[in-house]
């Protein structure tokens, strides 16, 4: 287990001079847990993640890492504790998996600390953990979407973060690879205790994989807590304007949102004609 680092915000405001996206948001990220930020499009969830990862400077309030304003800590030192995987990261043409993952070591190196055997071991361990070790010499552009995303996760793991922020890590992946990536993140969290904060689109997957949900709407937090405690039809209606049932997931028992919608295709009956 890592020593526990804390990440929190106090009265955080993010946005642009003419357009404030998040206003006075205060939250503690639970350490050593998986937190998913969910909410409708344009609710400010990616903006919050960019703020938490110091990519976006607050217009007011603070992001606190271990109780210190993150802007006052040297950005390289922040990077040894906290790492970020942007939504659609871009790799240079032809870069190999091992080379990409190796660049995750950047914050740990410096003038007097160049590449060492320890770096090789950490890069290898990250590739093994994400199952890309056999692809080490392959070029990133030759990989499938799921493999590529695992290589990028290996890159941020090589950074040895204790807090890992991911912006929609499952975007553009098919369902198999979405599960693969989320299972992988769960492994990392359960085995090393890495605090994970991710923006997720899929409410059901968020309920299944997150210990803790942050539900946002219009730049503010509506509610935060364990999915089983907070996800109700009323919450989904008030946040997503969607009528739904909330049932226990048949596999995990976590809440599942079943939208009601206006049209329901009849289910084929025993006569196999497709008509009821």
């Amino acid at each position: 287990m890592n020593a526990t680092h804390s990440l929190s915000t106090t009265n955080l405001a993010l946005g642009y001079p003419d357009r404030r996206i998040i206003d006075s948001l205060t939250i503690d990220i639970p350490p050593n847990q998986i937190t998913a930020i969910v909410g409708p499009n344009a609710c400010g969830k990616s903006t919050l993640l960019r703020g938490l990862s110091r990519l976006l400077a607050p217009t007011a309030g603070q992001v606190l890492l271990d109780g210190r304003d993150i802007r006052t800590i040297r950005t390289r030192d922040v990077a040894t504790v906290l790492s970020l995987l942007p939504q659609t990261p871009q790799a240079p043409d032809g870069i190999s998996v091992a080379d990409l993952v190796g660049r995750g070591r950047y914050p740990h190196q410096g003038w007097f600390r160049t590449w060492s055997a320890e770096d090789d071991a950490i890069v290898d361990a990250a590739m093994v953990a994400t199952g890309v070790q056999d692809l080490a010499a392959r070029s990133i552009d030759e990989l499938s979407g799921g493999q590529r995303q695992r290589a990028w996760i290996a890159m941020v793991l090589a950074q040895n973060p204790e807090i890992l922020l991911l912006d929609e890590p499952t975007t553009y992946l098919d369902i198999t690879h979405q599960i693969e990536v989320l299972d992988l993140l769960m492994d990392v969290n359960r085995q090393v205790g890495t605090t994970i904060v991710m923006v997720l689109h899929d409410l059901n997957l968020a309920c299944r994989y997150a210990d803790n949900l942050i539900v946002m709407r219009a730049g503010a937090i509506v509610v935060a807590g364990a999915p089983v405690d907070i996800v109700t039809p009323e919450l989904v209606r008030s946040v997503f304007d969607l009528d739904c049932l909330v049932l226990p997931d048949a596999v995990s028992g976590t809440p599942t949102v079943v939208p009601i919608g206006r049209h329901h295709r009849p289910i084929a009956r025993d006569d196999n004609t497709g008509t009821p």
Partner: protein
Amino acid sequence: MTTTNPTTVPAVPASLVARRARRRRSLGVAVGLTVLIVALGAVALLLGKASLTPSDVLSALAGQGTPMTGFVIGELRLPRILTAVVVGVCLGVSGSVFQSTLRNPLASPDIIGITASASVVGVVAIVVFGISGLGLALVVITGTLVAAAGMYLLAWRDGMSAYRLVLVGLGVAALCSGVVSYVLTRSDIRDAQMGLVWVTGSLNNSSWAALLPVAACAGIILAALATLARPLLVLELGDATAAGLGVPLERTRLLIIAAAVALAAVAVSTAGPLAFVALASGQIARRLLNTGGAGIAISGFVGAALLLAADMIAQFAWPTTAFPTGVVTGLVGAPFLIWLLIRASRTGTGS
């Protein structure tokens, strides 16, 4: 990481194997290019109006030739060859740094207005103020840095966008070529003649006196750039990833671009705005290395080889006339640019 069972980690880390392979590859390419540059240089020493034998050249190089061969080799051919190498390295490195930092294969100093601004400064200095030699070099370097700073500011809105910088640069390049034409048409015919040769790019005025200060400038800038090599590799992964990895984005990018601008200006002040060498070198280096990564040093080698070859073609391909070197780099480079544009629009990597 402590996550994994140690038995699953192979004895020799895959990371180490991959790193060794990469290093071998770049070393191999560097050696190959060095051999090519030396070979081109050797041929260039032999070619020229005064027909010299290899033994004439060798004895002249050893300082034991006749005064005539000593002059031809020592004062004419050798400085010209070395100038081509230094200018080629500057252009190659500058182009590769721009392309890699701005993450755009078209973003080389000759496309985005850096060499164009340098040529405006140079032409005005030559035609209007009659400046030449080291003074010209300093004026061009200073003027180009100022122009680049202006472009950087124009492209700034809540931070620097590489794409905006490319667009601003294209506009500036167009504007500059207009200004150059205006100055040339308004000036005295002899000044215009000289200005025109310079604007096309030429190594005709090479000499030790011109080369030494330029080589010193280039050496200092390259050394400064070498200290930024590691953050540069991380910047290649895009702004958000680089910031997440702890690179102070604006400061690092500003320093790197300033160094690349200065290198381009050094090259232009010496040999005029030779077209396309900067654009092509980085791309060729990438393909030679074929391992990702900018290959900035390799691009310098490629630039030197390209410029040496282009200068030889310009001087000797037509028995009756010697062309300015820039004519050759332009003729060869333009189709390359077109190919790059077509490829970029096909793969969608142009923006």
